[in-house]
C-alpha cells in the first residue's frame, strides 16, 4: 500500500516535471539542462534596462553584463583600479587654455580633451535591428500584419550583427542629452561636456514628425565637445577640469548604443507589445538577455559574438596606457547561462539557497542568526549547518554612507552660530552608532568618522585618524567622548539639562522619518532614547516618502536620515554632498542638509580637480576637520555587505564597484549536482502518515454514517 502511494505520487510529479532527473522540489524546468548555468534571484523588478537611464544596482546586475562601456574596474585589485574594456588603452589627455590653445600647464588648463580609442572587431550580439537585405533594414518599418505573430524578440526570424564603432558611443552621449530618455546624469554632463547643454536645448525645442526623422537629426548633429576622429576613435572635450570623468566612462551610461536598435525599438507596434529598448538591451558584452520576464525570471545567455577576455590577475599592469595581462590561459566568460528568478519574499529565497537552487545569497536580518555567529575572538564565522554545506562567506564594506542630517537652514539646529554648533556636536556624541549597528544591522557596519567610507582616498579609520569632535584618545585607545561631555556642550549651547535658557522651556527637536514597518518604529524608539540621554525631547514625524521629499525640498524638515551610494571611488563623490552649490533647497542638489561653508567650498573645489597625492590628502584632512567641527551630519555608519555562495561557485571576489562580474564566475556542476541531490531527497514518511490518517478518517465516517442510518431506520 505504501509503495502504491509513493509510486502514484512519484509518477504524477515526474510526469508533471517532465520526467527530469532533478529532485521533486527543483524549481527549474526540464529545459534548463546546461551545466554551466548560474542560478540566482532578484528581489525587485528592474525598472529600466536602458543604459541612458538605469541607475540602480538591481538594474546594473543585468545591463552591466550586456552593455560595455569603455572602461571597467579591475576585478581583483584594491584600491579600485580602472582598466580598458572596449577601449584599446587608457585615454589620452590634452589640455587647452581659455583661448583653446594647447598647454601642458594644468593650472592654466581650462578645457580637457579625452581621446578615446576602441578595439577593432568588437561585434554586437545578433539582433533583428541589424538585419538587412540589399542595404535595407527589414525590421525598421514593421507592418501591423507582421506584428501579429510577434510577442518577443525571439519571434523575429532573422538577425544579424555589426561591428562596434566610435559612432555608437557618440550616439549614446547624445541620448544622455535627450530629455525623453530621462537620464539622471544629463544635468551633470551638461556642466562638463562642451556643447552638451546647447544640444540638449536644441533637441528639446525641436518637433519631429516621426522617430526616423529624429534619429537622423541626432546622428547628423555634432556636439561641439564630442567628435568622431575615425571609425574607432573619438574625443570628448570637457569645459572644466574633472579628473573623475574617467569613472563615468566606466559606468553603463557611457555604453555604446547602435542607432539601428534605437530606431527599431521606437516603432509604436513594438512598444505596444512591451518590446522596447528599456526591456531588451543590445550590447557587445559576454551575455545577452534572452528571456526578459521580470515578473518571473530573466535569463542571460552567452553572446556567441563576444570577442573573449582574459581572466584578470593581480600582476596585471597598465604600461604606456595599455593593459598588460599576466594570465593568458583563462578566457572569460565561464558560463553559458545565468538564470535570475524573481523572489520577492525572503523565506523562500533563503530556503532555496539552502537547498542549493540559488548559487548565491545575501543574508537578511531574519536569517542572520541562522547563518553567522561571532566566535570567541570576536570574528564573524558561518554557523555549522552552512559550513557543513561548504558555503562561503564574503564580506566587504560598501562604498556607501548612512547618516542623520541636520537641516542647516533650521533656526534651532542649523546655522553657523556657536550655539547651534555645540548643540549638533552634543547630539552627535550622544548617539551611539556602535549600538545602532549591533541592534539594527546585526553588526554589519562600521562607525563613520566622516562621509568617506573605507577604500576611498582620505578615509579615516578611527585608529590612526579619527573625528576629534566625537572621539578622543584615552590611554592609547580611540574611544567615543562620554555623555557628560555631550551635556557640557549642551550647556555651552544654552540648553542646560535640555532646557532652553532663553525661553525656559524644554528643547524639543523633530525627526522626519519615512516607512511604517516594525523596524522603523524600533529605530525611532531607539533614537528617542539616544536624545533622551542628554534630556532632549525628540518628536518623530513619520510620513510617506512623497511628503518626506516635499519637506526636504522646501527645507521644512529639521532632522532626517539619508544615505549615499558611491558612483565612483573618489572622495569628491562623497564630499560634494556638502558643497554649498549642491544645496537641496537653493539648487535642488544632493546637499540635503543645505550645509554652506566658504572655507569648505574653497578647499573642495581645489581638491576636486586633483589626483590622489599627499597634497590632496592634506586638503581632504582639512576639509574633514571643518565638517567634523561644524557637524552638519551625525556621521552614521558605512554598511558591510555579507554575501554567501555555495562551494561550487568559483572566482567569487568582493568588488563592490565592478558590476560586470558575472563573466568571471565559474560553476563546478558535478559538485552542485551531487549536493543538490543529496540535500533534496524526497521524504515520503509524512505523506504516508497523512494518507493513513485520512484513510482512517474516511473509514470511520463511513462506519458512523452506516450506524446512524440504521439507528434511524429501526427507531
Amino acid at each position: 500500500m505504501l509503495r502504491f502511494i509513493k509510486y502514484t505520487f512519484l509518477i504524477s510529479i515526474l510526469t508533471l516535471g517532465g520526467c527530469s532527473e532533478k529532485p521533486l522540489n527543483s524549481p527549474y524546468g526540464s529545459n534548463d539542462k546546461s551545466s554551466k548555468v548560474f542560478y540566482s534571484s532578484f528581489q525587485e523588478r528592474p525598472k529600466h534596462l536602458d543604459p541612458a537611464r538605469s541607475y540602480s544596482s538591481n538594474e546594473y546586475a543585468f545591463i552591466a553584463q550586456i552593455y560595455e562601456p569603455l572602461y571597467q574596474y579591475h576585478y581583483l585589485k584594491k584600491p579600485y583600479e580602472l582598466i580598458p574594456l572596449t577601449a584599446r588603452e587608457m585615454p589620452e589627455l590634452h589640455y587647452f587654455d581659455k583661448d583653446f590653445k594647447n598647454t601642458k600647464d594644468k593650472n592654466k588648463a581650462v578645457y580637457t580633451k579625452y581621446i578615446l580609442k576602441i578595439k577593432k572587431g568588437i561585434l554586437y550580439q545578433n539582433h533583428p535591428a541589424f538585419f538587412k537585405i540589399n542595404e535595407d533594414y527589414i525590421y525598421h518599418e514593421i507592418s501591423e500584419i507582421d506584428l501579429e505573430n510577434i510577442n518577443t524578440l525571439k519571434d523575429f526570424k532573422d538577425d544579424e550583427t555589426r561591428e562596434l564603432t566610435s559612432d555608437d558611443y557618440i550616439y549614446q552621449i547624445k541620448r544622455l542629452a535627450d530629455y525623453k530618455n530621462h537620464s539622471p546624469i544629463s544635468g551633470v554632463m551638461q556642466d562638463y561636456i562642451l556643447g552638451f547643454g546647447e544640444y540638449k536645448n536644441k533637441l528639446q525645442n525641436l518637433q519631429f514628425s516621426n522617430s526616423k526623422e529624429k534619429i537622423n537629426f541626432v546622428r547628423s548633429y555634432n556636439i561641439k565637445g564630442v567628435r568622431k576622429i575615425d571609425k574607432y576613435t573619438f574625443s570628448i572635450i570637457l569645459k572644466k577640469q574633472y579628473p573623475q570623468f574617467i569613472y563615468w566612462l566606466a559606468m553603463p551610461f557611457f555604453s555604446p548604443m547602435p542607432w539601428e536598435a534605437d530606431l527599431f525599438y521606437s516603432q509604436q507596434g513594438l512598444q505596444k507589445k512591451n518590446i522596447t529598448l528599456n526591456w531588451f538591451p543590445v550590447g557587445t558584452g559576454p551575455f545577452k538577455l534572452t528571456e526578459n520576464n521580470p515578473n518571473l525570471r530573466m535569463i542571460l545567455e552567452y553572446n556567441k559574438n563576444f570577442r573573449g577576455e582574459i581572466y584578470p590577475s593581480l600582476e596585471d599592469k597598465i604600461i604606456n596606457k595599455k593593459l598588460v595581462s599576466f594570465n593568458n590561459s583563462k578566457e572569460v566568460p565561464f558560463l553559458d547561462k545565468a538564470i535570475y528568478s524573481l523572489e520577492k519574499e525572503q523565506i523562500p529565497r533563503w530556503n532555496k539557497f539552502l537547498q542549493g537552487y540559488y548559487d548565491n545569497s545575501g543574508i537578511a536580518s531574519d536569517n542572520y542568526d541562522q547563518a553567522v555567529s561571532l566566535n570567541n575572538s570576536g570574528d564573524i564565522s558561518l554557523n555549522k549547518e552552512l559550513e557543513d554545506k561548504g558555503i562561503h562567506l564574503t564580506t566587504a564594506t560598501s562604498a556607501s554612507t548612512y547618516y542623520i542630517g541636520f537641516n542647516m537652514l533650521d533656526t534651532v539646529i542649523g546655522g553657523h552660530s556657536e550655539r547651534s554648533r555645540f548643540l549638533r556636536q552634543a547630539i552627535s556624541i550622544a548617539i551611539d552608532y556602535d549600538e545602532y549597528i549591533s541592534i539594527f544591522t546585526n553588526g554589519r557596519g562600521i562607525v563613520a568618522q566622516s562621509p568617506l567610507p573605507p577604500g576611498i582616498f582620505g578615509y579615516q579609520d578611527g585608529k590612526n585618524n579619527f573625528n576629534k569632535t566625537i572621539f578622543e584618545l584615552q590611554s592609547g585607545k580611540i574611544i567615543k567622548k562620554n555623555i557628560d561631555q555631550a551635556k557640557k556642550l549642551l550647556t555651552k549651547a544654552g540648553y542646560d539639562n535640555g532646557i532652553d535658557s532663553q525661553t525656559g522651556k524644554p528643547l524639543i527637536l523633530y525627526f522626519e522619518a519615512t516607512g511604517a514597518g516594525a523596524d522603523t518604529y524600533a529605530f525611532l524608539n531607539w533614537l528617542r532614547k539616544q536624545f533622551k540621554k542628554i534630556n532632549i525631547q525628540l518628536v518623530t514625524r513619520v510620513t510617506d516618502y512623497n511628503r518626506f521629499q516635499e519637506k526636504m525640498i522646501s527645507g521644512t524638515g529639521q532632522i532626517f536620515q539619508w544615505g549615499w551610494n558611491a558612483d565612483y571611488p573618489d572622495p569628491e563623490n562623497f564630499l560634494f554632498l556638502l558643497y554649498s552649490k549642491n544645496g537641496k533647497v537653493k539648487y535642488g542638489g544632493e546637499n540635503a542638509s543645505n550645509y554652506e561653508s566658504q572655507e569648505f567650498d574653497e578647499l573642495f573645489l581645489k581638491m576636486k580637480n586633483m589626483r590622489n597625492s599627499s597634497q590632496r590628502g592634506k586638503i581632504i584632512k582639512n576639509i574633514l576637520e571643518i565638517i567634523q567641527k561644524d557637524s552638519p551630519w551625525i556621521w552614521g555608519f558605512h554598511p558591510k555587505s555579507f554575501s554567501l555562495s555555495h562551494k561550487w561557485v568559483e572566482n567569487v571576489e568582493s568588488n563592490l564597484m565592478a558590476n560586470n562580474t558575472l563573466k568571471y564566475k565559474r560553476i563546478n556542476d558535478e559538485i552542485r549536482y551531487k549536493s543538490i541531490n543529496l540535500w533534496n531527497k524526497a521524504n515520503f514518511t509524512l505523506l504516508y502518515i497523512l494518507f493513513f490518517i485520512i484513510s482512517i478518517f474516511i473509514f470511520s465516517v463511513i462506519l458512523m454514517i452506516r450506524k446512524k442510518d440504521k439507528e434511524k431506520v429501526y427507531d
Partner: protein
Amino acid sequence: MIKYILKRLIYAIPILIGVNLLTFTLFFVVNSPEEVARLHLGNKRVTQEQIISWNEERGYNNPLFYNTNEKGLNAFKETIFYEKSFKLFLFEFGLSDSGRDIKYDIKQRMWPSLAIALPSLLVGLFINITFALFFVYFRSTKVDYIGVIFCVALMSISSLFYIIGGQYLISKLMHLVPISGYAHGYEAIKFLVLPVIISVLYGIGSGTRWYRSLFLEEIEKDYVKTAKSKGLSESAVLFNHVFKNALIPILTGIVVILPLLFLGSLIVESFFGIPGLGSYTIDAIQSQDFAIVRAMVFLGTILYISGLILTDISYTLVDPRVRLK
C-alpha cells in the same frame, strides 16, 4: 431578461464613474504628479527639469479637469482626468508609469492567477461541502461541536502561517514540490500544487461553516420533515433533498466570485512567486505605479459588477420561481 440585464448595465455606469472619481482623487489630488515623478526617477541626481519632462511625457502636466488653454471639447479632453481616467471606460489602460503597456501585461498575467484560483475554488468547494454535509449529518452531536471548534480554529490562523508552514513542511522537510516559482505550460502544475493546497486549507474553516449554516437552514424546512415522515433515511434526505435545494445559494455565491478569480490573490502570489495579477497589483502599489493601480481598481469594479449580474441570471436558471424584471 435582456431588458433586466441592460438596466443593470446602465446602473453600473454611475458606480464605475464613482469608483473612477474616487481613485482619481486619491491618486492625483492627494499625491501630486510631481511627487510621483520624483519617486519614479529615483533618489539620485534628480533635477526639476527631469521631473517636468517626465510629467510632460505622461501628460501629467495638463490640468486636472478643465483645460483653459483649449477650446470646445478639447478643453475637457486635454486634461489628466480624460486621459488617465475617462479612457479606462474605453478599455484603454495606456502605459504604466515605468513605460509598459498595461493591457498587454494584464493579458499575460491573468492566466497564472486563474491557474491557482480555479483549482483552489473547485477543490475547496468539494471539500467544504463534504465537511459541511458531514457536520450537518451529525448535527447537535459531539462530532458537530468538535467540527465547529476545528473550523473556528482554522479560521483564526493567519494565512501567512499556512503559507510559511506549508512551504516548510512540504517543500523544505519533505522536498516534494518547489517552495516557490512558476513555469508556463504543464510544468506549471508542480508549482501550483502547494499554493492550491494552502488556499484550500485556509478556506476550509470559513467555507465549511458557511455551507453548514446553509444546510442547517434548509434542513429545518417542512419538506424535509415530510421526506423524513415518509421513512427516508437521514442520508437520503440530506443528499437527495437538502443538498439539492441548498445548491441555489451555493451556486449563486460561486457565480459572484467567478469573474474575480482573474484578479488573483495578493499574498499567495507574492509568497509563491506566481506572476499573476495579484502580485502585479501589489508591485504597483509598492512602486506607486498608479497607472496600473487605477487600471486594476477599474477592472476589479467591472468584474465585481459583472459577477453580481451573473448571480442574478444564475438565480433564474437554478430557481424557476425567480423572474428578472
